[in-house]
């Protein structure tokens, strides 16, 4: 279910931990799998669990506990906007409202064309650059004014 490149990345993560503690790589292995498939189906989680050599239920637990894992399909681009207080004081909540209006969806929803999923996030440790938005979990965008949001959305096919 995963390309040789993804498997090689998981192998690299596994080298960080003692040989009898392969479970430690669960989170990064699930992350690598999610990057390839965009979301984690039950089959994918089970595949990852088997690859690492842990019971599938242990991998499900991890996939469920951590917010950045998606257990159902998401759009081609997942946008997570931080609305916690420090960001809200500098336009974080407004950025969230602007995105909702512009995309015509609420938090946790995906546009009809499957292009965007919008999520409300908690503090990302980047409050000084508010408003902040995370694109596809890994790319942090700072100072997301309405103009900056327009520009960013146009870049994301």
């Amino acid at each position, binding site marked *: 279910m995963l390309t040789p490149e993804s498997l090689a990345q998981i192998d690299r993560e596994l080298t*960080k*931990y*003692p040989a009898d*503690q392969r*479970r*430690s*790589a*669960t*989170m*990064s292995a*699930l*992350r690598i799998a999610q990057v390839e498939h965009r979301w984690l189906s039950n089959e994918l989680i089970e595949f990852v669990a088997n690859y690492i050599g*842990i019971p599938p239920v*242990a991998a499900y*637990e*991890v996939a469920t*506990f*951590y*917010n*950045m*894992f998606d257990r159902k399909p998401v759009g081609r681009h997942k946008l997570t906007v931080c*609305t*916690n*207080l*420090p*960001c*809200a*004081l*500098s336009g974080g*909540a407004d950025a969230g409202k602007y995105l909702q209006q512009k995309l015509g969806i609420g938090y946790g929803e995906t546009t009809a064309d499957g292009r965007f999923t919008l999520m409300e*996030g*908690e*503090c*990302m*440790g*980047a*409050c*000084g*650059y*508010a408003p902040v938005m*995370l694109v596809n*979990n*890994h*790319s*942090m965008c700072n100072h997301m004014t309405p103009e900056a949001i327009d520009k960013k959305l146009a870049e994301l096919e």
Partner: protein
Amino acid sequence: MTVYVKGVVFEGVDFDDPNSWKLDAYVARGGYAALKKILQTGMTQDEIIAEMKTSSLRGRGGAGFPTGLKWSFMPRNFPGQKYLVCNTDEGEPGTFKDLDIIVNNPHALIEGMIIGGFAMGITVGYNYIHGEVFEAYERFEAALEEARAAGFLGDNILGTDFCFQLHGHHGYGAYICGEETALLESLEGKKGQPRFKPPFPASFGLYGKPTTINNTETFASVPYIIREGGQKFLELGKPNNGGTKLFSISGHVNRPGNYEIPLGTPFSELLEMAGGMRGGRKLKAVIPGGSSAPVLPADIMMDCTMDYDAIAKAGSMLGSGAVIVMDESVCMVKALERLSYFYFEESCGQCTPCREGTGWLYRVVHRIEHGQGRPEDLDLLLSVGANIAGRTICALGDAAVMPVQGMLKHFRAEFEHHIEHKNCLVRGY
């Protein structure tokens, strides 16, 4: 934006130079000299820990525990594997300093961890990095590669028989993993649920082995202390509050950002450095140490100096050094509603007082904000809080209660107005 006024973490860093984080630049500004000093002059473990104690460096992750003392708790002659763990799971609302360290000066952290490993006889370390800042994780991994290639990290460091392996590990969206035992569970590949203590990590930590955990900024302060001496570090700050610290300033200031300044600097000066209040509006209140710290009104804050003891005396805590500045347009009910939602959302659900209590706090503040509050609600909030605080496995329970108590202590009238008139006194956020 990062402003270096005086300090040890960002000394010599050129924030305009995209290569300033790299090993060459770090070495050119005195980097890895502390490690060389230890290995080449035969500085002993006891001497290192003594310097750490002299420095009076206190943990920069929130609790402010003296680092030298923590290091001395580590069973140095324990026969099996021991671990050193760095906490870069920065997720306390308002805090963004550790991200800045990893991005702009990762080798200071790496060198600090290698020294910690040497001092406590530990040969393996991990740095747990907040999932949302994945680019910082990649930066850290790149810096590790450089350190290994240069012989500062790995087997036989600088030709001695000292070995230390260090790896990056990322989270994936759970505030609770900042709590050190939840972090260890997560590092083991499990749900991030805090452990009962005791046993403490120093005896039962990662994989059940003795483990020392420190914050990113704590480790990044170590090279300076070893290079220049603990006394010199101490003198940068004030007694019992040694050194300088990074303050993350967010909210209604003209220049939000990280400011590295001596502990004991007056808040009024810090506010000025941050460009003063945005739009020239009046300061209303400050949360001085991350979202868990009780709020302080402007007049108290303007008389405070920024150090552990002064902020504690004023009834709050310095915590992680996240300073959330609010002007007169802020509705305190709405502000508290957002924070209470956060703790409710992030409770791991393991203990009943926290799982149920955080939901209760949020729902009551929510109904006050939405014009459905009842006169007895304020006492209800305090009694729910009293039933959470001190009755939970980890400090998230207390962290959820302190903002409520602080708000009701200093801004009770605003909550009463909401309940009586069903609307806000002020109309900003």
